């Protein structure tokens, strides 16, 4: 509670938002606020100006392309993704978003905020990395699209630089996906997570074991191959009150196999 003093602007367009962000290097984009506001309560982070993106319609909504590609606006909430018929083109999206926290958080929290925060315990970074999502970032001098590998740089760090905005997430067509996690209570914070996608080739992304999702491409979808791939990744996750590094490494292996099995089942 009791935030430090902060400025507030509510732009109506991406251009205005970019201008506001560029105007002050202490400016931060405010999406759903389900993480940022809490960090500000603790006064652990203290932006000088909040650029509230909630008034920008261009950043909201889900489009399903003819080729099955999904274009999801960065300010689209988890609830909107869960409810969206278009989003069912990639069913895992709604399934995972429905597991994030609770109704209130899903009503405010956004896909853009989730990936830009890139807290290692977040659900979407490993999922989007596994299913080959691409991220469109807009800056003063135009926009660019980057892969997950180039997007996630570190805890609370992404390819979205100062004065830039993540505007949308593009998700290719596909169906054979899986997500498995051990959480702190049902629908709770992830202690370890793994997402898998079998569209064309086997791709697994591990959460909670590094600053960014750890993407693996096992030679095959059988349990041994997946285990081997995780073991080959020589993970060095942090220990915390919920899990030792060793336990996280073990969970990563088990969950990777389960995510792949789920992906096979959902094919």
């Amino acid at each position, binding site marked *: 509670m009791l935030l430090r003093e902060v400025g507030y602007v509510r732009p109506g367009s991406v251009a205005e938002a970019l201008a506001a962000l560029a105007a002050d290097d*202490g400016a*931060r984009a405010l999406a759903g606020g389900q*993480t*940022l506001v809490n*960090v*500000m309560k*603790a*006064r*652990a*982070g*203290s*932006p000088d100006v909040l650029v509230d993106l909630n008034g920008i319609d261009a950043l909201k909504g889900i489009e399903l392309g003819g080729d099955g590609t999904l274009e999801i606006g960065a300010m689209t909430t988890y609830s909107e993704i869960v409810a969206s018929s278009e989003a069912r083109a990639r069913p895992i999206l709604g399934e995972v978003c429905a597991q994030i926290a609770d109704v209130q958080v899903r009503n405010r929290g956004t896909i853009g905020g989730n990936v830009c*925060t*890139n*807290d*290692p*315990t977040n659900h979407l970074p490993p999922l989007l990395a596994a299913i080959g999502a691409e991220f469109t970032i807009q800056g003063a001098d135009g926009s660019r699209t980057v892969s997950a590998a180039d997007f996630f740089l*570190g*805890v*609370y*760090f992404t390819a979205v630089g100062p004065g830039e905005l993540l505007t949308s997430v593009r998700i290719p067509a596909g169906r054979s996906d899986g997500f498995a996690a051990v959480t702190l209570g049902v629908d709770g914070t992830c202690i370890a997570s793994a997402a898998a996608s079998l569209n064309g080739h086997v791709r697994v992304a591990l959460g*909670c074991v*590094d*600053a960014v999702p750890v993407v693996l491409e096992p030679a095959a979808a059988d349990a041994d191959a997946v285990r081997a791939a995780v073991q080959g990744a020589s993970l060095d996750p*942090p220990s*915390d*009150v*919920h899990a030792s590094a060793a336990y996280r490494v073990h969970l990563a292996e088990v969950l990777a196999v389960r995510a792949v099995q789920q992906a096979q089942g959902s094919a």
Partner: protein
Amino acid sequence: MNVSGEREFAAPRDAVWRVLNDPAAMARTMPGVESFDVHDDTRWTANVKIPLGLGGLRMKVDMEKVDEREPEHAALQIKGNGVGAMLSMTTSFDLAENGSGTLMKWAADVKIAGPVGSMGQRVLQPIVNQQVQHVLAALDREVQSGT
């Protein structure tokens, strides 16, 4: 939390040593330095804003060189005092000639107390590792430009 590692520099040891012992040069390698004061050749103070992505953590950081054996070893005691966080860090580096280059072995023991220390356990280590990588990369640039 203990972090350590090795780093090779394509530069002679004295060049690396010079950078590591030049407050101004060090300031350029540290993340989010906003101002920097040199009290004497063993004590410096920096006002930094550690870029935590979600807004940054402001800290006043006092550094003191507690041990020095030119040109191969030095140890620093670093105390950071910021809202909701107390950073204390002892770091040391050893330089060895390695052909035409220099091999640096470094180690740091980082302690963060206060709400941030409590809150951020699961993200602290990745963040520290990441900051260390930034510093080393910057160090590289400094060494190159210094030679």
